[in-house]
């Protein structure tokens, strides 16, 4: 037994875990990854990197933007690792940004077809499309007053997502949308405030940012709201914040959000809508019926002239009309962003039959009836609950 133990100890000796050890401050943590078209190579890869200080007071954590042109993700990482004093690590990466002109041709697909595991990347990266230079976008998120990771994440992710104006989609969900027939991807859309705007595809007069009101003038110079609509891996149009909310209502992702309607006299009316229960979607051949259940909290003084029932019916009618317009716009560009494919899958009894089925061909012939049921939380004339 003694010789067995000695042999075991000898075997364990070369297994020292401290070999090739690196101290934590020799790493640079990539927070955001951006991809756009390169000039000499197919892709320009941009990383927003957090570099830890050396522990002294004068050297705090700093965020830097670094770029490299490459043919593959690994090539970009190797290039930057060779040129950068710290070793890049991806364990804290939380955002993947695709440039609009790359997404419009689907050219990001070969690039994204890399092994995430090899770079320790999490599949829960939030994916987003931008319409400016990725470097500008990243620099726009960096605020001199608070360059911390939490501030960036809060500004980019939580606020826009919680307001219902942007689609919060992870990389895995994006891949599912690209490769399968459950519905096309709908990604958050961002841009630098001063940059030119892409018009909304559903016919609204609004900007694609911030629910169609104003471009934000904040300490952060990049705004996020609205969505980029995909047909498979190809970006085909842009929706503003309000239309994004309406798509999310059908997908049952919407929880609350403020929508802007036009009253019969032409004046605007702002209503906060809440999800009451899951929507009902019935798909029968080439006809679908969508029923939405929402609670409305109108606060505008302009509606004092309407009684509760008229206001409720007016909201239902307006919302149904907008949903039909958004669906028509999506169908025109061939995108099933509302996810009717999910209902189509229910009719199949074998995986092979579902995989062989061409849902997109039938989607082009689909006619959808939207019916919205609104319950008023209260009316300005009667502040109590109805």
């Amino acid at each position, binding site marked *: 037994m003694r010789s067995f133990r000695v042999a*075991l100890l000898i075997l364990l000796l070369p297994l020292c875990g401290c070999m090739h050890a690196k101290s934590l401050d020799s790493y640079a943590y990539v927070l955001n990854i951006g991809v756009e078209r390169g000039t000499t190579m197919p892709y320009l890869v941009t990383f927003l990197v957090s570099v830890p200080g050396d522990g002294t007071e004068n050297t705090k954590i700093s965020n830097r933007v670094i770029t490299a042109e490459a043919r593959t993700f690994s090539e970009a990482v190797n290039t930057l690792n060779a040129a950068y004093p710290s070793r890049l690590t991806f364990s804290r990466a939380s955002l993947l940004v695709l440039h609009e002109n790359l997404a419009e041709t689907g050219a990001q697909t070969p690039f994204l077809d890399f092994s995430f595991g090899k770079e320790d990347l999490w599949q829960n990266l939030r994916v987003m499309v931008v319409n400016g230079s990725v470097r500008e976008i990243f620099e726009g998120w960096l605020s001199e007053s608070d360059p911390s990771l939490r501030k960036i994440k*809060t500004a980019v992710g939580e606020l826009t997502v919680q307001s219902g104006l942007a689609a919060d989609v992870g990389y895995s969900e994006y891949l599912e949308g690209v490769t399968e027939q459950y519905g096309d991807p709908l990604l958050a859309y961002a841009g630098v405030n001063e940059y030119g705007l892409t018009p909304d595809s559903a016919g609204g007069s609004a900007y694609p940012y911030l629910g169609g009101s104003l471009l934000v003038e904040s300490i952060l110079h990049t705004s996020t709201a609205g969505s980029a609509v995909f047909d498979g891996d190809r970006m085909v149009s842009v929706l503003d914040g309000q239309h994004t909310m309406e798509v999310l209502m059908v997908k049952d992702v919407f929880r609350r959000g403020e929508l802007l309607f036009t009253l019969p006299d032409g004046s605007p009316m702002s209503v906060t809508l809440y999800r009451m229960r899951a929507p009902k979607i019935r798909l029968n051949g080439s006809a679908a019926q969508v029923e939405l259940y929402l609670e409305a909290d109108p606060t505008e003084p302009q509606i004092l002239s309407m009684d509760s029932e008229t206001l409720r019916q007016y909201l239902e009618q307006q919302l149904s009309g907008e949903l039909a317009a958004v669906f028509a716009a999506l169908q025109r560009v061939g995108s099933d962003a509302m996810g009717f494919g999910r209902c189509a899958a229910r009719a199949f*009894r074998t995986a092979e039959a579902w995989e062989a089925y061409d849902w997109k061909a039938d989607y082009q012939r689909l006619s959808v009836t939207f019916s919205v049921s609104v319950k008023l939380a209260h009316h300005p004339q009667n502040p109590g609950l109805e």
Partner: protein
Amino acid sequence: MNLRIGAFGRQEAASAVWIATFTSGCFAFDNHAQFADGNAACLTYAGAALLSLLLFEAVVAVLRRRRGRDLLRLFGNAKWKSVLALPLFFSLLLAAMQPLQLFLVTVTEYIFVEARQVSICMVLLPCLLLLTALGAETLVRTSRLLLPLLLVSVAATLLLAVSQYRTYRLFPIPLGSAKKLVAEGAGTLFRTFSPLLALLCIGEGSQNVRAMQSAGRIGALGGMLTTGLLLLGLGLSFSYVQLREMPSPFFRLLIEVRTENPTMRLDRATLFLWMSAAMLSSAFYLYAACVLLAKTCGIADIRPLAICVSALAVTLILVLYYDSDTTVAILRGLYRFAWIAAIVPIPLLLLGNRKGGGECDLSASHC
């Protein structure tokens, strides 16, 4: 005789079976085969689990009638016992390789991404050797300690992933082809029955057959329930097409959780527990295979056998990486039909005993 079976109670044995059922259920060698017919994997798993339990109950009923304490009692003095023991031995070896292979894939894909498989195996091998050589008592008692932690980690994983569950991913529910469901269920039967087979091999260590039966029931039902919940969680989180291509779906479930709170990032801690469970269940299977071989061939000391069999399992795993695709294809085929090796000898043994054959000679070393 130094078979190192020792003595253990119902809780310990149930824990070992629970962990082995869980790891065998979750860590399939071939994800493509497991999710070939979409989310039918959950349904076929439930069917296979039920069949395994019925088979276990049948063996235990015969053992109780014959006052035996383990599967070896059914072999008796039959001359063909080695013919029946050999497929069972190989099925246990294959069962042990499954979690080991997943251990290696997960560690090299997600943790030590720059490490070579042979380096990981150099760490894996001594641990496995030690665990297998220490015997049944050590294995089942360690399982008893690990099980609560493992269950907490599974519950935490499933709860943290709730926000990403979508029921549409379960569709289409493939109930159309009964023939395919049966074929898939047969493949799953190997994974659900192996833990019970291992328990039957080391049953001598339990207090009596009733305790072994109870441990088998509790462990198998608990493990099957845990596995079923995890498979359902996977089905709700990923489409079956994605699941087919994932090297370690359970780890992907962990790293899919999107949270800004770093304390909620439980991936590494959970992985450590799950990998410990994988190692423990591999050792459990290997030890059971060694006991089977030692008793059949009359080998007095289990340690040399444990070392050889553990080394064989790790070597076979390494061959997968360093040999051609043919090896992978062969192993896939073996796993597909491994249920024949694990299941077919059991009815033969039961039938042999029914006819009065295979009477045990109590003076023989294996009784």
